[in-house]
């Protein structure tokens, strides 16, 4: 009897471990649809809309190298030109020309519209969250795995994410982003998939406020340049030079 219980327990542990590994693999593969290479520059525009107001458009150049190094240059509109963000792992700085120096800020601070700093400065869900498989659902006719992502530390943008990843191609389809209180903050939809540099990439992310559904921000991923970026681009002391 005791041996049977032990066998069942061991089997349960192995199965749950295998499911966790599968969940992590799913998230890692879905991350690849948002990261075309190890070192690249991507032009992103964010269109923020609220009710009947005219949309505002913000432009960024995002420099990425390795897992956790991201430099974001603000290129539009004119009032933001000269600003930049640097994310090194879980550390984030903003460079403001008026201050003349990089200033430490939290990831959770809002960047523009419904977009937090972490939405463009961090794309490593597999590194930042523990994933578990929670079931299967269809989103707009696409069969998906549903994953629960829990933050590995408090230093990430969201406390939890509910993540829909397509069964075919393992691409990100939908995400719900939650605060530590369990409150739904916003919903994201990934679409406009294109083949770029041999990868199938999501080139649009639409973020909608959970309470005010008329508040939306659309991230469009445009021109992509894959190249080996110098390490000094990811040094806070170099931010003023890249202005």
């Amino acid at each position, binding site marked *: 009897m005791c041996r049977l219980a032990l066998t069942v327990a061991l089997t349960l542990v192995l199965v749950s471990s295998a499911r966790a590994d599968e969940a992590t693999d799913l998230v890692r593969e879905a991350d690849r649809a948002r990261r075309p290479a190890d070192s690249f520059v991507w032009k992103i525009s964010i269109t923020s809309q609220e009710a009947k*107001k005219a949309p505002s458009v913000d432009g960024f150049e995002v420099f990425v190298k390795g897992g956790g190094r991201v430099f974001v240059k603000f290129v539009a509109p004119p*009032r933001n030109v000269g600003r930049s963000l640097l994310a090194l792992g*879980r550390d*984030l700085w903003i460079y403001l020309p008026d201050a003349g120096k990089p200033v*430490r800020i*939290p990831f959770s601070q*809002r960047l523009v519209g419904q977009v937090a700093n972490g939405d463009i400065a961090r794309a490593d869900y597999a590194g930042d969250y523990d994933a578990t498989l929670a079931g299967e659902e269809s989103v707009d006719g696409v069969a998906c795995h549903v994953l629960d992502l829990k933050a590995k530390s408090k230093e990430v943008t969201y406390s939890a994410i509910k993540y829909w990843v397509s069964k075919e191609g393992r691409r990100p389809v939908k995400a719900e982003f939650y605060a530590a209180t369990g409150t739904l903050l916003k919903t994201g939809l990934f679409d406009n998939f294109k083949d770029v540099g041999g990868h199938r990439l999501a080139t649009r992310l639409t973020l909608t406020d959970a309470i005010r559904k008329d508040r939306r921000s659309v991230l469009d991923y445009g021109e992509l340049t894959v190249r080996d970026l110098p*390490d*000094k681009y990811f040094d806070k002391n*170099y931010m003023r030079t890249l202005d």
Partner: protein
Amino acid sequence: MRRVLAAALLLALVAPAGADEAEPPAWAKALRLRGRLAEEFAYRLHDPGDVSKLKTLGWLDGKYAFSESVAVRAAVRGWYDAVFEATDRYPANVERDQKTDLSLREALLIVGLGDLDVRLGRQQIVWGEAISTFVTDVVNPKDFREFVLPDFSELRIPIWALDATYRLAEGVSVEGVWTPDTRTNKLPKQGAEFQFARFPYRFRNPVVRLPDDADEFSLARSEGGVRLSVLRQGWDVALIYYDEADKSPVLFQRRVAQPPGPEVVVLDPQHPRLHIIGATLAKSFEPVVMRAEAALTLGKRYETANPLDPDGVVGRDTLDWLVGVDYTFFETVDTALQLSQKVLMGSATNLTRAGVAAQVTTSVTLRATTGFFDNTLNPTVLFVAGVNRGDFRLSPRIDYLVSGAVTLSVGADLFEGPHRTLYGQFDRNDRVTFTTTWRF
């Protein structure tokens, strides 16, 4: 009319980039040009209520990158303050000093050689982690003609300098600065809107004040320092050392016999040598960011009202330090709270500088900002208080983003406190402001 012409010229410069969808030539891709035009209006609320600023200000800033490793940058700033036409409350020396300005704000050659980056030319070199304070921001002199109310990039006076940074390892770099440009802080002239409270000399003898004519360039008096910056496990630490002349003049007294008349008291402004040793620290404990700074200034001297002091000046090494936290409330209100102290290594009795209230002068700073209507309406409030004597500055402001290029700002600068305190000296200078800024 002048503004219309300037705007037309700028539009002509900017428009082709937007109008032509074709790939721009290589030189155009290497060139970055931007600028802003601002109209700044201020109305003084007391004694008497009157316009105190009607300034048209323009900035033009360009960068040309010859390659990824070599670039040149230049920036010019000019202004015209029509308040001197609108009112006759300011004397001629203030009008000469503040009515117009055309200055080179940046002229810089930037060269990258592997892990070494060199910046040579006229520039601002900004050290420190804190916001709205100068504890370790010691390299550039400051322009205090409008107190500390403008943006800090406007307050800093650019200097000709060599600034070299070498990356020793990932997250570790050392920066060396050297400058023969020894220009000093710009202080408001007598009769200016933000003239500092005057030293209460009570001499029976005639007094002669010598001009402050320290050379702006001097190899012998050149200044410099180093900063070691380390980032480990999210801890952002820097150690600094800087050797400079005091950027504010210290009035040394001496008595000169003038027989058969009485002795004349000569006030001689000097800039004693200072050695500044400091450290900065910043760390994010998401969602809180903590920052701290400290600077020990050796060789600091202060004027004293003690009549028995032979030269009217005493030496007091001084420690300035601060600690601050940033936190976002309700995911919408960004706040920054800072506590700072100036600690004199010795008695502060008889010292008359407005920023020195006691041997330990304590102040607190609170800044809060939020956004409404998708961040198009952004209220900000800055409150800075001297704890010892209860003087304070309160500066509320609302920025309205009319478009991506145009911002309207309405605000106020309110000062309260006893006379001869840092903020109390401007007790009668409360003002409301209205600013329009167009960026391109």
